[in-house]
């Protein structure tokens, strides 16, 4: 992956995932190593995403890299009408790698084609967010000791959630049994189910959250957004059906962990936070180590241990 862009989870193999996850473990053990002090990392956030940007900037800073960039297109030349190509070509003169978030789908692929330096996709519209997928894999592997043969439940908006799509596709490499919990309006699209079927893996669909909890190792929660419903009555009907409360975890397996890509709104009540099964804030922390691993891999820097 050295000098290559990371645009989509489809670009990398199972072998690549594992190399990144193994390296991320080393960074978790020792996250402050000045191995990137000769590098400049650009973070171009054409739409704001404070959480993702800070995670990347923390990852790069802890490894000694200098970080340049913008956090909102309204403060950059994009506002003056500059094309994406021109922005990328200009910034590539100033940096060794470009981390980019953009509201349009396909923007990261295009940027990677025009840029002389590698591009890391930090989210292109509703399309891809591969570093989120890798940090999810890392969190699952860390909490379950392995990625193989797990029962994983996805809850909420399975239709539009890009994190769900990428993670489901990545997990098809690990003999996962999928438990898909969503309102009928927001079921996992057939274009994603195709990957499960190709591998002959089991999947079960539910509309109720509670029945799935005792069966699974991972509960991957997502937010249901009101704007996904044409009729607000439909939204009112389902919005409370997928709220995880602490007492619902009583019959869960001991090894169960609750993941959420964050930000959470109300789909996990705060009383879950103190339950040892709640893992979403650790998950966010893991994001830093995984992004350090991705930066080091793409920049071709080895670590000593």
């Amino acid at each position, binding site marked *: 992956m050295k000098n290559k862009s990371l645009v*989509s989870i*489809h670009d990398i193999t199972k072998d690549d995932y594992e190399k990144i996850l193994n390296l991320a473990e080393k960074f978790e053990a020792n996250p402050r190593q000045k191995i990137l002090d000769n590098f400049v990392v650009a973070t171009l956030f054409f739409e704001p995403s404070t959480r993702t940007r800070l995670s990347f900037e923390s990852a790069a800073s802890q490894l000694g890299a200098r970080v340049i960039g913008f956090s909102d297109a309204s403060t950059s030349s994009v506002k003056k009408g500059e*094309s*994406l*190509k021109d922005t990328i070509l200009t910034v590539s003169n100033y940096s060794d790698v470009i981390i980019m978030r*953009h*509201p*349009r*789908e*396909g*923007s990261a*692929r*295009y940027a990677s084609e025009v840029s002389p330096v590698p591009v890391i996709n930090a989210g*292109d*519209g*509703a*399309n*891809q967010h591969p570093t989120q997928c890798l940090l999810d894999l890392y969190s699952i592997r860390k909490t379950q000791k392995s990625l193989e043969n797990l029962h994983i439940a996805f809850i909420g908006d399975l239709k539009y959630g890009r994190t769900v799509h990428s993670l489901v596709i990545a997990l098809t490499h690990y003999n996962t049994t999928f438990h898909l919990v969503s309102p009928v309006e927001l079921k996992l699209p057939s*274009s994603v189910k195709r990957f499960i079927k190709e591998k002959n893996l089991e999947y079960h669909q539910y509309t109720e959250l509670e029945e799935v909890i005792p069966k699974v190792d991972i509960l991957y929660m997502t937010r249901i957004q009101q704007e996904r419903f044409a009729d607000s009555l439909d939204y009112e009907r389902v919005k409370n059906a997928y709220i995880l409360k602490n007492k619902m975890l009583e019959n869960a397996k001991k090894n169960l962990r609750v993941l959420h890509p964050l930000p959470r709104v109300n789909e996990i009540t705060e009383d879950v936070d103190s339950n040892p099964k709640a893992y979403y804030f650790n998950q966010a922390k893991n994001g830093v180590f995984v992004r350090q691993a991705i930066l080091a891999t793409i920049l071709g820097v080895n670590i000593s241990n």
Partner: protein
Amino acid sequence: MAKQNIRIQKTNIKLSGSERKELKVSAIENGTVIDHIPPQSVFQVIRILGLDNIPNQIMIGTNLDSQKFGKKGIIKVSNKYFESEEINKIALVAPSATLIVIKDYTVVYKAKVEIPDNIKKIVKCINPNCITNHENIPTKFIVIDKADLQLQCHYCEKITKKEVMNFI
């Protein structure tokens, strides 16, 4: 008049037996014949190939009898040989079409058009939020289903289906 007779005679010898009916719209000396176009796609083929904007002589026939298809359309373009990119366009709207290249009244190439594995420039991505619909970027697709014609955008990864396909 004599010259015209020779033309027809030559063409009859070189083209297959069913060509007699096509001669209703006359043979060409040099150029390309697009045959076996579904009648409903004839004008689409004209439009996407930009045939309405070139100075060449063009003969168009539609709803002609066809042994294979019942009815068919045919377009004959004098002194024009298509690039593969243009041929691909034909395959998308008229997958049954046959392309015949004629030089000096002789068929030098004849083949059914084929939907390629990749489509560049000619189709618009259906996704309104795709970067190709907002910046000056030539579109690129991977053909994921040739029978049902489904194109996956190389950039946004969304699938454009035949029913909603728009040409640039």
